[in-house]
């Protein structure tokens, strides 16, 4: 959307008049209302129903967890003030004093036991997302009102991380509340969070008001309205006109025009990865042929081919041109600097002659043809990346036919093994979780390889990662995870492409917005401007 030069003064003039009108209104009342345009569709009011960012992000205004994962992905106290490991399989969590639920009930250890119990025993899939977090918990007990003891099945150093995903609900005398009861709004959602529930319309809006009794001090905003606007252009329009104060997930191409209209833009490298993944297990990879169109044995089983293709990807073009700079070239699963990443893994500029030589060495001096599949419109830059890769690989003789399909179709076909090579995206609570989902060998417990559709298997790596994940949270563990990642990526089972940025825009009412690499949209991250107070 471009506006001619001659109309801009008019628009600014109108804006100034409007601002003048607003300043007459009692500033206190106006200023403390926060309106957020979000792409996150709240699907349910049940905080344990589905482990999707959509629900977690919005419900975290109302509900809290024992542990909070901060923007450096470190574990910080929330409803629990401290925790320690009593033995290999026993943990003790001390709870915060003087915390009240929105209905006035005191928060105690019984509520924690109840919440874990609800996930373990009441909910049936598709509320499955949370069950994987509590699977390792054998039993929970409450020695006193402010202490909780967890007994785990075997060693579970990631317990605090897992608990940083689980919302604590209030224990009911009448037993568990069902998802239907919670969605119906009777009784209303009852958490300990900084905002209390006011109203919800599925796919439309979500409203909360300030919880004056919040343990962490008086929350900044008196009323917060989330408007669910999935269309990015509509979110940008809502922010440009001052209809909302914050808009999340702004397309990079709209950033300059937003800035011009006086909005501030914040961005952070997302704790996620977009990558190219190969089928490395089957003798034939679907869609892979020689230059004449005849099918050939799966070339991706040869590490030289995978390395050659990785060498011939121009990540800088993707980041600079496609993402307009709102992204980071990727050499590992999370942006460098987050826990579990390795400083040794850095991206390199493309080396086409070397890549071509390596391909020839592997027995493909003339290259081959592939169908490169990917979802369209799911991740920033997904479709364009397919085309950029096609151009790069053409230089080493690999003909690429990009195949972009809707995300749901992509998932179905990828799971059915219909693709030989594809572009995908992945995220996780921590680097080791993502690396094990992408590259670990699928096991019977189901905690490995959920994104490993290429069926890559490297027992030495599995063992290294397993050992690393057994270490207590801290530098030693992070170092071991980084080493395991370095080791496995030498084998090039995937080609890391980029970490896109989460880009948020906000207006004058907001002084700063603390971006979170997991892409959360909450009122707590927004600090009000001083003059607005």
């Amino acid at each position, binding site marked *: 959307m471009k506006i001619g030069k001659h109309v801009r003064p008019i628009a600014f003039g109108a804006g100034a008049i*409007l601002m003048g009108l607003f300043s007459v209104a009692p500033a206190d009342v106006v200023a403390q209302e926060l309106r957020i345009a979000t792409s996150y569709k709240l699907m349910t009011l049940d905080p344990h129903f589905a482990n999707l960012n959509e629900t977690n992000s919005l419900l975290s205004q109302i509900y809290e967890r024992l542990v909070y994962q901060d923007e450096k992905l470190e574990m910080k106290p929330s409803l629990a003030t401290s925790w320690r490991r009593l033995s290999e399989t026993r943990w003790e969590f001390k709870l915060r004093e003087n915390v009240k639920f929105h209905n006035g009930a005191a928060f105690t250890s019984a509520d924690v036991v109840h919440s874990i119990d609800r996930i373990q025993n009441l909910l049936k899939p*598709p509320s499955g997302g949370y069950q994987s977090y509590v699977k390792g918990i054998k039993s929970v007990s409450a020695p006193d009102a402010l202490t909780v003891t967890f007994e785990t099945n075997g060693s579970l150093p990631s317990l605090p991380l897992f608990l940083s995903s689980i919302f604590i609900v209030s224990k009911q005398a009448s037993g568990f509340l069902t998802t239907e009861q919670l969605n119906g709004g009777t009784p209303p959602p009852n958490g300990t969070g900084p905002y209390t529930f006011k109203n919800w319309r599925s796919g439309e809006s979500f409203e909360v008001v300030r919880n004056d009794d919040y343990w962490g001090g008086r929350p900044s905003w008196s009323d917060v309205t989330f408007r669910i606007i999935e*269309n990015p252009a509509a979110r940008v329009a809502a922010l440009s006109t001052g209809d909302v104060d914050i808009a999340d997930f702004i397309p990079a191409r709209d950033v300059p025009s937003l800035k011009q209209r006086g909005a501030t833009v914040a961005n952070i490298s997302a704790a996620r990865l977009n990558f190219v993944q190969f089928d490395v297990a089957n003798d034939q990879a679907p869609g892979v042929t020689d230059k004449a169109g005849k099918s050939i044995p799966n070339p991706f089983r040869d590490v030289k081919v995978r390395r050659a293709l990785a060498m011939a990807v121009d990540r800088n073009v993707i980041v600079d041109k496609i993402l307009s700079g709102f992204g980071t070239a990727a050499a590992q699963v999370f942006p460098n600097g987050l826990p579990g990443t390795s400083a040794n893994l850095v991206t390199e500029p493309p080396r086409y002659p070397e890549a071509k030589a390596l391909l020839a060495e592997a027995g493909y001096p003339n290259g081959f043809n592939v169908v490169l599949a990917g979802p369209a419109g799911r991740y920033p830059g997904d479709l364009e990346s397919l085309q950029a890769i096609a151009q790069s690989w053409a230089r080493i003789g690999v003909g690429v036919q990009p195949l972009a399909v809707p995300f*749901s179709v992509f998932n179905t076909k990828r799971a059915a093994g219909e693709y030989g090579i594809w572009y995908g995206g992945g995220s996780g609570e921590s680097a080791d979780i993502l690396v094990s989902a992408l590259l670990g060998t699928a096991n019977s417990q189901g905690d490995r390889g959920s994104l490993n559709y290429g069926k890559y298997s490297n027992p030495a790596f599995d063992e290294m990662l397993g050992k690393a994940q057994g270490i207590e949270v801290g530098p030693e563990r992070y170092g071991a995870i980084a080493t395991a990642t370095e080791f496995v990526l030498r084998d090039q089972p995937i080609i890391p492409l980029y970490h896109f940025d989460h880009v948020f825009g906000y207006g004058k009412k907001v002084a700063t917005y603390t971006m979170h690499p997991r892409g959360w949209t909450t009122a707590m991250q927004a600090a009000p401007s001083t003059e607005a107070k």
Partner: protein
Amino acid sequence: MALLSVITGRLSQAFLLIFVMSLVGFIGIHSVGNPVYNVVNIETATPEEIRRATILLGLDQPVWRQYLVFVQNVATGTFGTSYIYHQPAFGLVLDKLSATFELALFAMLVATVLGLGLGVLAGTRPGSPLDRVIVTSSVYALSVPSFWLSMMLILVGAVMTGWFPPGGRGLTANLLGFDWSFLTSDGLRHLVLPVLALAIPNIALIARLARAGTVEVERMEFTRFCVAKGLSRRRILFHHTLPNISLPIVTIVGLQFGGMLAFAVVVESIFAWPGVGKLLIDSIQLLDRPVVMATLTFTAIAFVALNTLVDLVYVVLDPRVRIST
């Protein structure tokens, strides 16, 4: 008698239509992809979780059995539970109905009044400059794609001038158990742009029809006879011209209104108007089959009902229809 036969005929038609449509819709959605990948978090879910979710949603059953379950759900009136929202699908559609209904109703009112007025104005002065302006601009209004029109309306009406909000429903008030935007001034302001976006092409369409009809009727002998008899222009217009051009216009109003109720997808998406069209497109993207089926069924019913209504209006408007049935 005529009324009864029209209604029974329509009812049997409706049932057949809904049956065929449900079958096509069901198989269509089924073949697009597996909804289970939208229900679990595909980036973190384990195969075991996917398997359990599949069983819970009944997606492990053969298609014909899933269809039978669906028919059962229709019979109980719930249309099944939404895979995504975990609420009865029909309830979700009902929730969005008032938003779409008021949008379509206002758009159609504006379109009919303005379209008819402009069309008759042009038709009674064929060849005049006014006629040429109306005819030419109607061509533009009809050929502009609705997403572009919507974007321009937002650009001009919201971003540049700040007169109207760029999207959303604004404040609503409750009447008869539904939320309505038109009952509050804030809601009315929110209505303006999307109503215009929907109305503009229809104004053009109706204006062209009305113009063509008027030109034709004005040439007829009975009109000339009326003029010869010395009737006033006003009387000729309201008592003779308008009734004679009304049939095609009533038809097109009925059809377009049905279309707006069901498929105002583009306008609803761009203006973030939480209506049925937006629900349909969201649900198709998420492969939320129960909601898609509930929406489609509602659409079919709306179309059949509107067509029936149009037929009944024919009976009232055109004496010849009354005689022939």
